[in-house]
């Protein structure tokens, strides 16, 4: 049974009815296929209505939907299972909040990196809620350098509430690890495509976010801080998170308008979690489309364009 977040509550009644109807259809001789069809249509319309006009804060809630697909689900679907996960930063340990490895998309090799969240309570802890330590960023960098060596493009899937703010993270240089990635990614001689698939919080997201194309899924967010923490710092209470979400202009639409990302990937009606397969297909198509363009650009030119793009960001007078 799907989990419903607050904005999806109006779906509850229809979902219950559908559940019952499907049960009757499967368990008895009564044909209710027309009822099922009607209910599905109603659900579709209701979902469309709900998801058409999401506020910034509601989008943040959707980006954190417990059923939303995470990085490894994308990788497995996009590669059709032709993926070999690679572990470790060769220095300290293997960070479970950051995954990566080699895979193939329609016959083209690519290097995946990305934060990984857990699908249940136990796994959420195992994945440290998608909050990487320095070794996670260093593992990602190691894999990117490996990709560069063999002229393989990098696909970075971003989904994190932030880099982990712990004692050991500080001891092992969280700031240095992220900074190093920013500088190294700027100079990487292979195409880099970054996709924010869920949460894009601050330096923790940016640490694997320097790409030739930076794209956001429709219901993802990307900013310097989460709305809750922004509210806590500026208003000294979490109460203003909705207003903070508005003020931060963290949706794909606003980020594109401010020329801070390169594009938005549409999600199915009802969000990525409502039809993961469709989402994976769209993301795969987008990756293939971008790869074709980026592979045609000479490495020097690619690096130059990438640096220029980021250097143009900001508003001064």
């Amino acid at each position, binding site marked *: 049974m799907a989990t419903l977040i607050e904005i999806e509550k109006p779906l509850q009644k229809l979902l219950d009815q559908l559940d019952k109807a499907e049960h009757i259809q499967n368990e008895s001789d009564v044909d209710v296929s027309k009822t099922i069809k009607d209910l599905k249509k109603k659900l579709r319309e209701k979902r469309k209505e709900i998801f058409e006009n999401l506020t910034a804060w509601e989008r943040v809630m959707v980006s954190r939907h417990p059923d939303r697909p995470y990085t490894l689900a994308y990788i497995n679907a996009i590669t059709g299972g032709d993926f070999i996960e690679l572990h470790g930063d060769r220095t300290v340990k293997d960070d479970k909040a950051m995954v990566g490895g080699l895979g193939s998309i329609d016959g083209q090799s690519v290097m995946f990196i990305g934060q990984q969240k857990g699908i249940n309570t136990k796994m959420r802890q195992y994945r440290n809620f998608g909050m990487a330590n320095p070794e996670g960023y260093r593992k990602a960098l190691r894999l990117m350098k490996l990709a560069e060596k063999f002229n393989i493009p990098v696909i970075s899937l971003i989904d994190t509430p932030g*880099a*982990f*703010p*712990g*004692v050991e*993270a*500080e*001891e*092992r*240089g*969280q*700031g*240095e690890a*992220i*900074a*190093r990635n*920013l*500088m*190294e990614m*700027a*100079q990487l001689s292979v195409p880099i495509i970054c996709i924010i698939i869920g949460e894009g919080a*601050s*330096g923790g997201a*940016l*640490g694997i*976010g*320097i790409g030739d194309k930076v794209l956001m899924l429709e219901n993802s967010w*990307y*900013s*310097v*801080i989460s709305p809750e923490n*922004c509210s806590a*710092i*500026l*208003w000294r209470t979490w109460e*203003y998170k909705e207003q*903070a979400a508005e*003020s*931060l*202009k*963290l949706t794909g639409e606003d*980020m594109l308008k*401010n020329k*801070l990302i390169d594009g938005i990937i549409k999600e199915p009606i009802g969000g990525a979690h409502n039809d993961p397969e469709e989402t994976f297909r769209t993301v795969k198509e987008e990756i293939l489309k971008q790869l074709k363009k980026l592979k045609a650009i000479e490495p020097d030119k690619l690096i130059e364009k*990438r*640096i220029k793009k*980021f*250097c143009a*960001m*900001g*508003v*001064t*007078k």
Partner: protein
Amino acid sequence: MGWFKRIKDGIQTTTKDKKETPEGLWHKCPTCKQMLTTEEHAENLWVCDKCEKHHRIGSVEYFHILFDNGRFKELETSLKSGDPLKFKDTKTYVVRLKQAKDKSKLTDAIRVGHGKMNDQDIIICCMDFNFIGGSMGSVVGEKISRAIDASLKKKIPLMIISKSGGARMMEAAFSLMQMAKTSAKLSLLAKAKIPYISLLTDPTTGGVTASFAMLGDVNLAEPGALIGFAGPRIVKETIGVDLPEGFQTSEFVLEHGFLDKIVKRKDLKNTISNLIKLFAN
């Protein structure tokens, strides 16, 4: 001196900017309560003569300390913050900026100077903490970016003095992207093999630590500075117990391998100019 005569306009000395130090005014060390006259305090480079606490100072003081005779040409003085997001929390960003300007007499949280340090050319970017907590917005990023352009063009070593609470929230993702921008620009400086000295001072945290501050060919820090990515309050909340003694101090960061050296303020100029001389080989 001849070198300075070649620069037609914009020559500044810090003398005229220097803080008034009328006789009889006293400075009390917040750490050990030692009393110093403001004159003695300035002569001691704003370091307590008893406990050696390095008190927070701004670009005016650092330029005075580091440039020969306190003389330099200030670059990019006209850049000012926009308000791209029309940001408003308890007050608008525009009001915040105006108040910061009035209070600090600065245009933003960083100034860039080009001058001589022990007779060698250097470009220094210095952050000012008393402008919205030294936070990094578009102006800070752009000024650093242009300072790097000048460094590249003139083949002059670069130094950045960090002193910042991190990103400027009121510029949201624009401020986040300044991390990308400055780091990408520094990669060009690295490629051109022009030395970059990073000096981390109290405090250096957040997005500044996670970008240019940690990317020096040499990372230096003043003694006893707070240096970290996450702020100590956040780390404490995460772990739920008290932080270890000396956590996130310069000495801690040196011990864990992320600084090359801790340098006392009085030794900064000679250490840095010596490093640059050695790099020039």
